[in-house]
């Protein structure tokens, strides 16, 4: 099965879109709203690449995307016992956060960046600010990983629209990991 121009083909388990096993790793992306955490956090889903088309994705790569992407039944190619194969467009407004590499790290794709939020404490030489009192800047972050051909470089301090970042929470072999995703179009400046 080959994809046409501007599209790629993925497959996923219809009844278990939040869990996948690849290689020796077991990956799980929980729905944060189910565990009464921040409702703003979305519902990431997992799928496996069949044909990446023009992208750098190869067959077998695991990608993390927004759940609405896989629910578009009009683009399903086949559904055999709950294993769905579908064609998805490769456009900037399609929310594919990134792929998971062999070590379990998120590699950002399609204008996404993996960042670390900046924490600022009170300045004092005597009192060490506990983490709970540290103020998290909700529109500033340091870039950890960038997607291919990005004009933003790793290590730069970015300023973006408030609340436009997305905290991706996932489990690798039962160990929780987090990645802060920011879209390139939401970045308005670089602090030097």
């Amino acid at each position: 099965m080959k994809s046409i121009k501007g599209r790629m083909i993925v497959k996923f388990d219809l009844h278990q879109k939040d869990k996948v096993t690849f290689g020796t790793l077991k990956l799980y992306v929980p729905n944060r709203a189910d565990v009464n955490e921040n409702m703003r956090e979305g519902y990431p889903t997992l799928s496996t690449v069949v044909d990446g088309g023009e992208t750098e994705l190869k067959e077998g790569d695991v990608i993390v995307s927004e759940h609405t992407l896989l629910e578009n039944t009009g683009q399903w190619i086949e559904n055999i016992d709950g294993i769905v194969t579908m064609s998805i467009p490769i456009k900037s407004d399609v929310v594919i956060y990134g792929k998971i590499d062999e070590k379990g790290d998120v590699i950002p794709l399609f204008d996404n960046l993996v960042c670390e939020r900046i924490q600022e404490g009170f300045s004092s030489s005597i009192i060490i600010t506990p983490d709970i009192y540290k103020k998290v800047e909700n529109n500033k972050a340091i870039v950890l990983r960038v997607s291919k051909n990005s004009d933003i470089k790793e290590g730069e301090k970015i300023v973006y629209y408030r609340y436009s970042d997305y905290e991706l929470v996932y489990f690798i072999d039962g160990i929780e990991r987090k990645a802060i995703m920011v879209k390139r179009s939401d970045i308005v400046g670089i602090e030097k």
Partner: protein
Amino acid sequence: MISPLDQNVLIKPEPITETKLTNIVFTNPKPATRKGEIISVGKDVEWLKKGDIVVFVPTNTVETDGLFLVDASLTGKILFKYN
């Protein structure tokens, strides 16, 4: 120092206080528009330059360290410039 990207500009706003003869300072906490001077511009901004005085809508813009990062595209937040 912040460098604006693409079609964004960095604006230093004028303070939003009014001093009356009685020395009572009136402050409007959420004005609909703000006036300010452009400090730097992104690479895609053509119709504005450093030093321009503009009036902009501060809602849904990024405010950091007392400065505003405002989208200067035609559908953006800048209403007009003075000079």
